[in-house]
C-alpha cells in the first residue's frame, strides 16, 4: 500500500511528521538533532525534584545548577559550554534506571552526577557499568562502593566516625546505645560504628587506647516509623552515656523531639553521623538538640572567606537572603568542580582520561576546605569538622581535621591493583 | 420426563430462619413430584426467604430440606442448582450486557456443553417468544420480555424443580396470560413452585395452593378451598394480627 502512495505521501510527509511527532510517545527527531550544538557538551544530572526525597533533592539541584552556571560563566571547560540535562527522578527508582539509560543512550552525556538515596545509586550503577559511562555520586553515604566507572565524592563512615568516637569516649563515656535506620545506610553504618567505637576511633584495635562498648541492642528503625515511644523507653532502660544516631530524613526531627518531650534532653549525650545535613539544627529548638555532636564535612557556620563568598553567591542565585546553604548544596558543588578539575587536567571529556586524572590525586579548595581525590578507592580525602549544636540554631566548631582519608574503603578497595571491580563492600 | 406421581420431590422439615430475633420462616412442607404448587401470602409472609433457603442463598437457622430424599440444607447455590433446582427471582436477574441468546446459552452450557447449548438456546428462544431478539442486548428488553427470558434461563437446563418468584409481577393481563400458559407447559417436564400475588393468575395455573402467613403454613388446599376460607381473606386484609416484619 505504501509503495503506490509514496509520491503523494512524500508531499504530505513533513506535515505528517510534525503531527505524528506530537502524537507518538517518542522524542521528536528535531529535539535529538539539536542536542549536540558545536561548542556545547552535554552533562547529566539525576535528582528528585518531587516525591519523598525532594527534601534532599531540591538543595542538591541548587548546588548542581550553581556549579554548572559558574563553570560556564568562567568560560566553560576546554572551550566548551556545559549543557546541563536534568531529569526529575520523582523519588521513583524505576525512573532512575530509565533516565540513566536516556542520558547515556540518547543525550550521550559525558558525565552524570546524581542520586540521593543509596538505593537510587545502586539502581543506576548497573546501568553505568553496562554502558561503561562515567558516574559521580556526591552524597554522604554508608561507604564501600568500589567501582571503576563510579566516583563517590561524599564522605564515608571512616571519615565521620573515627574522630567522633574519640571525642565521645573522651567527654561522654564508654557506654553507647545506637539507633540506625532500617535500610542499608543504617545497617552498614552500624557495622562501621561498631568497629570504630570498639577500637576507640581506629579501624583496628590499638593497644592501650580507651575503647567503647555497647549497651542494649542496636535498634533498626523502619523508614516510615514516626513514633519513637518504645525506643525511648528502651534507651532509658539501657542507661547509656551516649546515643549514636544513624537515622535519616524526618526520623531525626521525630526522635530528638520525642526524646526531649520525654524530658531526656541534656540527661543523655547524643552524637550523630549525619545530623544537620537536612538543617535539623535550624528546625529543632536548642532545648531539644543543643550539645549534640557531629563530625561533618560542611557546616554553614564555617567562618572561612571561601564559605562566606560561596553562601553569598548561592543566596543571590536563589533570591532568598535567608536561604539555608546546607551540605547537599556544597556536596554537589564540590562534586561538579572536582570533575571539572579532572577534565582540565586530562584535557579531554573522555571517561578513561578523566578517570586517570582523578586517579592522579587532584585536589581543589572548596567552601568546606581542601578535598583531594584518592586513586585506590575513587573516594576523596576530606576536611572534617567536629562541631556541637549551640544555643542559637548554629554550630560551635570544636576541631577541624584536614586530609582525612577514606580509611574504611581503603581496607577493601584498590581499583589500581584490581581495576575491574563494580561492587560495594561492607565490613565483616 | 417425570410423570406426576405422589412421590415427594421436596420436603422442608421444621425449616426455620430467624433475622436478629425475628422469626421470618418456620415451615413444614411436602411437594410431590410433578405437581404445580402455588405459594401465596401477604407481603413479608416469608415466601422469598423460603425460596432463598431452598436455593442455598440463605442459610436456615434450623431444620432440613430434602430434595429427592437427599439433604441439601446449607449447600452452596451452584451445587443445589446442579442437583436440579433452578430459580427465577422476583426482580428479573438477567445478564444485561449480554445478548438474549448469550443469556440462554450460558444457562444451558453448564449442563449440556457448548454445542448442544446453542441449539437448546435457539429452541428456548422460540418457546419464550424472543426469537426476534436473539442478538439484542438483554438490557434493551421490556420488563415482560425480561421476565420470560429469566424464566427461560431457569427452565432451559431441564431442572426437576423450578422455583418462580412472582413471574407475573409488573406484567399486563395478556402478558400474564401467556406466562400462565408457558408455566403450565413447563409443568409437563418439571415440578414447579410458583409464588403469586394476583389470585386469578394463581387460579389459572394452580393445582394446590399453600398460604403462608408470618412465616408459617397458614392454610392449604385447592384454589376453591382457599377462596372459601374466610381467615385467608382476613390476613390479606391485614386482620390476621401483626405482620411478620413486626413494624
Amino acid at each position: 500500500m505504501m509503495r503506490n502512495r509514496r509520491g503523494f505521501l512524500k508531499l504530505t510527509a513533513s506535515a505528517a511528521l510534525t503531527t505524528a511527532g506530537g502524537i507518538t510517545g517518542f522524542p521528536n527527531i528535531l529535539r535529538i538533532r539539536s542536542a549536540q550544538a558545536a561548542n556545547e557538551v552535554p552533562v547529566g544530572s539525576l535528582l528528585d525534584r518531587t516525591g519523598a526525597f525532594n527534601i534532599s533533592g531540591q538543595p542538591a539541584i541548587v548546588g548542581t545548577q550553581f556549579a554548572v552556571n559558574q563553570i560556564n560563566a568562567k568560560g566553560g571547560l576546554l572551550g566548551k559550554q556545559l549543557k546541563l540535562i536534568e531529569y526529575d527522578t520523582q523519588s521513583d527508582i524505576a525512573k532512575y534506571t530509565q533516565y540513566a539509560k536516556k542520558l547515556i543512550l540518547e543525550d550521550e552525556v559525558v558525565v552524570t552526577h546524581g542520586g540521593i538515596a543509596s538505593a537510587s545509586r545502586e539502581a543506576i550503577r548497573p546501568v553505568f557499568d553496562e554502558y561503561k559511562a562515567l558516574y559521580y555520586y556526591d552524597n554522604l553515604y554508608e561507604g564501600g562502593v568500589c567501582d571503576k566507572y563510579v566516583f563517590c565524592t561524599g564522605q564515608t563512615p571512616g571519615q565521620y566516625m573515627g574522630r567522633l568516637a574519640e571525642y565521645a569516649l573522651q567527654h561522654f563515656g564508654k557506654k553507647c546505645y545506637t539507633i540506625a535506620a532500617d535500610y542499608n545506610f543504617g545497617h552498614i553504618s552500624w557495622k562501621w560504628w561498631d568497629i570504630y567505637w570498639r577500637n576507640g576511633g581506629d579501624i583496628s584495635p590499638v593497644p592501650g587506647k580507651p575503647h567503647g562498648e555497647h549497651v542494649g541492642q542496636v535498634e533498626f528503625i523502619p523508614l516510615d516509623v514516626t513514633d519513637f515511644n518504645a525506643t525511648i523507653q528502651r534507651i532509658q532502660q539501657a542507661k547509656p552515656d551516649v546515643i549514636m544516631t544513624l537515622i535519616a530524613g524526618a526520623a531525626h526531627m521525630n526522635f530528638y523531639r520525642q526524646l526531649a518531650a520525654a524530658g531526656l534532653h541534656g540527661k543523655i549525650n547524643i552524637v550523630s553521623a549525619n545530623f544537620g545535613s537536612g538543617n535539623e539544627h535550624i528546625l529543632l529548638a536548642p532545648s531539644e538538640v543543643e550539645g549534640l555532636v557531629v563530625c561533618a564535612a560542611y557546616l554553614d557556620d564555617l567562618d572561612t572567606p571561601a564559605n562566606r563568598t560561596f553562601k553569598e553567591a548561592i543566596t543571590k542565585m536563589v533570591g532568598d537572603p535567608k536561604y539555608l546553604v546546607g551540605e547537599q548544596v556544597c556536596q554537589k558543588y564540590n562534586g561538579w568542580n572536582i570533575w571539572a578539575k579532572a577534565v582540565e587536567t586530562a584535557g579531554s571529556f573522555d571517561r578513561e582520561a578523566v578517570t586517570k586524572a582523578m586517579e592522579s590525586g587532584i585536589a581543589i579548595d572548596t567552601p568546606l576546605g581542601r578535598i583531594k581525590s584518592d586513586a585506590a578507592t575513587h573516594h576523596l580525602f576530606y576536611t572534617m569538622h567536629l562541631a556541637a549544636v549551640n544555643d542559637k540554631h548554629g554550630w560551635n566548631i570544636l576541631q577541624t581535621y584536614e586530609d582525612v582519608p577514606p580509611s574504611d574503603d581503603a581496607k577493601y578497595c584498590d581499583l589500581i591493583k584490581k581495576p575491574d571491580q563494580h561492587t560495594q563492600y561492607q565490613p565483616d | 420426563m417425570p410423570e406426576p406421581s405422589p412421590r415427594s420431590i421436596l420436603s422442608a422439615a421444621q425449616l426455620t430462619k430467624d433475622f436478629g430475633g425475628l422469626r421470618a420462616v418456620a415451615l413444614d412442607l411436602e411437594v410431590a413430584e410433578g405437581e404445580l404448587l402455588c405459594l401465596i401470602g401477604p407481603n413479608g409472609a416469608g415466601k422469598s426467604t423460603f425460596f432463598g433457603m431452598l436455593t442455598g442463598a440463605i442459610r436456615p437457622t434450623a431444620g432440613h430440606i430434602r430434595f429427592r430424599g437427599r439433604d441439601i440444607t446449607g449447600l452452596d447455590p451452584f451445587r443445589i442448582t446442579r442437583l436440579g433446582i433452578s430459580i427465577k427471582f422476583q426482580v428479573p436477574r438477567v445478564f444485561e450486557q449480554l445478548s438474549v441468546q448469550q443469556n440462554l446459552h450460558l444457562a444451558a452450557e453448564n449442563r449440556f456443553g457448548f454445542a448442544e447449548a446453542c441449539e437448546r438456546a435457539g429452541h428456548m428462544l422460540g418457546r419464550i417468544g424472543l426469537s426476534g431478539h436473539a442478538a439484542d442486548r438483554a438490557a434493551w428488553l421490556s420488563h415482560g420480555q425480561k421476565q420470560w427470558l429469566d424464566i427461560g434461563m431457569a427452565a432451559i437446563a431441564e431442572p426437576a424443580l423450578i422455583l418462580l418468584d412472582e413471574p407475573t409481577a409488573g406484567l399486563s393481563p395478556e402478558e400474564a396470560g401467556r406466562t400462565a400458559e408457558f408455566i403450565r407447559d413447563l409443568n409437563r417436564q418439571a415440578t414447579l413452585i410458583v409464588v403469586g400475588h394476583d389470585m386469578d393468575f394463581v387460579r389459572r395455573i394452580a393445582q394446590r395452593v399453600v398460604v403462608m402467613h408470618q412465616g408459617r403454613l397458614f392454610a392449604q388446599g385447592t384454589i376453591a378451598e382457599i377462596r372459601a376460607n374466610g381467615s385467608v381473606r382476613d390476613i390479606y386484609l391485614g386482620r390476621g394480627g401483626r405482620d411478620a416484619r413486626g413494624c
Partner: protein
Amino acid sequence: MINRRGDGRVRTGGTDRLAALLVVVPLALVPYGFKPYAANALALFLIYGLLAMSLNLIWGYAGMISFGQTAFFGVGAYAYGVIALNTIGPVGTTGLAVVGGAAAATALALVTAYFVFYGRLSDVYAAIIMLVLSLVLNTLMVSTAGEEWVIGVARLGGFNGLFGQGSTGQNIGNFQIPPITLQLPFMAQPFAFRIDRTSVAGYYLVLGACGTTYLAARLVLASRLGRIAVAIRENEARAAHLGYDIRLCKLTIFTLAGAIAGLAGVLFASWGRFVNPDVFGLAFASGVVVNVLLGGRLTLIGGFVGALAVNYLTSYLGGIAPTASYAAGGVLGLLYDLLGRATQQSALLVQGAVLIGTVLLLEEGIVPPVARFLSRRPLIGWFFLLPLLLVYFSAQIACRQADFCLY
C-alpha cells in the same frame, strides 16, 4: 461499576485488523526509527502495560478489583532475581529463573485467591486486603538490609535492592541481576536479551511476551471460563443459580492474572537488572489501577494504553527543567517564584489533574471511544492514520539508518 454503554467487546472483525495494524506496526518499528533509548523506555512501559493487563483481566471481565497486583509483580521480580543470580553462574542461562519467577507469583496469587474468595470477603475489603499484602511485602523487603538475609549468593539488600554477593559476605554488590538469557534450539551459545546500541533483542522479547500473553488472554476470555467470568461480572448471584461454581472460576481467573503480573515482574527485573521494595509500594500499586482506569477497564488493551500514556507523561514532565525557579524580590518576583516552584511540582500536579479529569470526563477510559470511532469510521483509519504512521516511521527509519532526513 459496570459501564452501561460499552460491553467490553466493542471492536468487530474489520476494525480488529485495522486496530491491530495501528498498534503493531509502530511497536515493531520503533527500534529502527529511534535511538536505543526509545526502545528501552517503551519496553518498560510495555512491561507496566502487561501488569495493568493482569488487572484488566480480573477487573474488566470478572468484576473483581485488586489494588495489590504489584504484590505478584514484585514477587515475580524478586524470585527471578534470586534464582537468576544463583543459576547464571553454573547453568549460564536464566530459563529456570523465568519459570520460577512466574511460578512464585502464581503460587502467591493462588493462596491469596483461596483466602479471599473462599473466605467470602466482600469486594472492597478484598481489594484492600490485596493492597495490604503488597504493603506488608514492602515493609518486609525494606528491612532485609542486614547480612542475614541471603539466599545462596543473592543478597536481598533491603531498600538498596537485590544484588549477588561475592564469595565473602563483605562483597555485597558483586554482580547484579542478569538479563533474561536463553539457549534456544537454533542458538550456538546462550543469548542475553538486552536493549542497547548493539542489540534490541530485549525489546522484541518484551514485545513478544506482551503480544503472546495478550492473545492467550483473549483465548481464555473466548472460552467457557471467560463467558462465566463475564456472567459473574454481570450478576454473580444469577450465575451461581445457573449452577456455576463462582469461587472456583474467580480463583482460576485471579491466579491467571497473578501469573501474568509475575511474568511482568520477571521482565521488569531483567529490564533494569535491579529490583527493590519500591515495587511493593503504595505509589506503584495505585499506579497500576490508574493505568487501567485511564486506558479503559473493560478492554484488555486498556491497561497498555493507560500505562503508555501515564508513563510517557510523567517521563516527559520529569524532563522539563524548572523555568524561573529562582526569582527576584517584589510581588512579581513572588509570583515568578510560585510559578517556578509550581513547575518543579508539575510531575505531581499534572498527574493528579489527569487522574481527576479522566474520572470526571472520560468514564470509560481512552480505548472504548477510540475503538468506537474506528469502527464507525474505518476509512479514516485505513486511509489516513495508517498511512500517516507508515510515512512517519519510514521517514524516521530513513533518517536513523541511512541518515536520509527530510529536515
